[in-house]
């Protein structure tokens, strides 16, 4: 209990203390149970004891998986489940299994397998926090592991192609979100007024979906239609991660500005592209000037199709 405990995990962005669901779960649990944890966000993976984050180091003990870390914290008397009845403890296990089976595949898919998301957000973000040359290898490895996991657990017959598997896992994830929303109802946390292990796990899985800005966001849109889950995430962020959030707010503001700049650049690029395509069409030899009346109609038809092709 007196031994200092250090947690190494992935850092955060977009208002979150961490982007990685498991790291977030452990951090949330530590806040709920009042465990004094010094959090080291990884900037250089060479220093991590094993490659697998999050990792808790206390004196000489190294523990690596979230369930084991939580067990260790409980043994050190930092127990957030103290007031739970035995039945509620059983419910916790069941809901955690539900999250892992139904929500985690879609979460992994959104982060690591959806091509646009992976290439524009996940890979650059993780690569920027890992030392070269591991940054060339590790994001790819994590992506392959995620794909492997999804295919092996969900990809058996009668689902034969990746698109069918994707459709199924997103359906499952949306159903899981609906179930969680019904279970939460109007109460502040899942078991009354104090947060417990289940709240830590749900927060760890939901917060990245809720906050991270991806190009392809069907899961986020579904989540935003469930206001009690959004309120749950926001509550935990403001109440328990208040210091971290305010500490990061200048950086948060900067990232917001940077995002805005990127967006304006993207919009400018798109409008440049549209202008170029219009120019090309006008100069194209397929529309000789003598067919003026039909040219107007055709041009009207032609202009609408590049617009529809450019919209996402």
């Amino acid at each position, binding site marked *: 209990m007196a031994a200092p405990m250090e947690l190494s995990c992935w850092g955060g962005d977009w208002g979150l203390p961490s982007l990685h669901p498991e790291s977030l779960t452990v951090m949330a649990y530590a806040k709920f149970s009042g465990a004094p944890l010094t959090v080291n966000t990884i900037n250089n993976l060479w220093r991590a004891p094993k490659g697998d984050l999050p990792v808790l180091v206390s004196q000489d003990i190294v523990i690596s998986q979230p369930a084991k870390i939580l067990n260790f914290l409980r043994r050190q008397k930092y127990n957030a489940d103290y007031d739970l009845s035995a039945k509620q403890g059983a419910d916790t296990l069941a809901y955690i299994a539900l999250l892992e089976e*139904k929500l985690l595949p879609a979460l992994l898919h959104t982060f690591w397998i959806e091509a646009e998301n992976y290439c524009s957000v996940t890979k650059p973000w993780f690569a920027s926090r890992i030392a070269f040359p591991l940054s060339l290898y590790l994001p790819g490895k994590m992506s392959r592991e995620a794909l492997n996991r999804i295919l092996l657990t969900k990809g058996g017959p*009668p689902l034969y192609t990746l698109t069918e598997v994707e459709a199924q896992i997103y359906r499952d994830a949306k159903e899981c979100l609906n179930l969680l929303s019904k279970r939460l109802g109007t109460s502040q946390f899942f078991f009354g007024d104090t947060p417990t292990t289940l709240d830590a796990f749900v927060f760890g899985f939901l917060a990245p979906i809720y906050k991270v800005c991806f190009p392809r966001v069907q899961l986020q849109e579904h989540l935003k239609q469930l206001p009690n889950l959004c309120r749950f995430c926001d509550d935990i962020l403001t109440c328990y991660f208040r210091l971290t959030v305010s500490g990061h707010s200048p950086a948060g503001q900067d990232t917001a500005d940077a995002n805005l700049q990127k967006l304006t650049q993207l919009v400018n690029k798109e409008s440049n592209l549209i202008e170029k395509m219009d120019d090309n069409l006008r100069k194209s030899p397929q529309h000789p000037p003598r067919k003026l009346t039909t040219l107007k109609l055709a041009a009207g038809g032609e202009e609408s199709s590049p617009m529809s092709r450019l919209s996402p």
Partner: protein
Amino acid sequence: AEPWPENAALYQQLKEEQILLSDNASSLAVQAFLQMCNLPIRVICRANAEYMSPSGKVPFIHVGNQVVSELGPIVQFVKAKGHSLSDGLDEVQKAEMKAYMELVNNMLLTAELYLQWCDDVTVEEITYPRYGSPYPWPLNRILSYQKQWEVRRKMKAIGWAGKTLEQVLEDVDQCCHALSQRLGTQPYFFNKQPTELDALVFGHLFTILTTQLITDELSEKVKNYSNLTAFCRRIEQQYFEGHEKD
């Protein structure tokens, strides 16, 4: 409700020589569910049941001209025919039921698979002889190795490959503890009426209790919880007596 045909059949592997612990558990769960819905079904044992199944998993049922495999899709199929056990539950209870079914699949089923395909002693003495028994050498060995490789890949992907047998038994214990707490002193998980969760739990626990393995550690873990053993006995007496149990 659509009429249930007389010749509905459930296919599984050969009961005496071939079927393994996890498949037996799944098959018993489906049989229990159909009994609870009062839908008669014949059990047919075929050596190639796994290959006949549309999803590669046993058991599967052949009803009319449709073939459906695994408990989840079978429950939905039966619901579409107008029979359901969980209609009386409210939304929160349905969410709980789904969560507990995932818990059983996630922990109990995975532990059974681990025990029979990743524990070397069990693999050598029980699984290899049983799994390929209807086939001649060397096909029986090849099929067993292939299946073992598949299961080991899956275990590695979900992070169970690094677990020792003790840790797996710990997980089974935790799962049984949770189930026991949830059941409490009620006759079924959602009080008076059985649901698909009861069928699933019965299938797994009864199989664990009655299957002879190398050691009794797995069944000992379940026997520690008297309300679970009473639950199994109650369902066995109510739904399976009067039928041939071999």
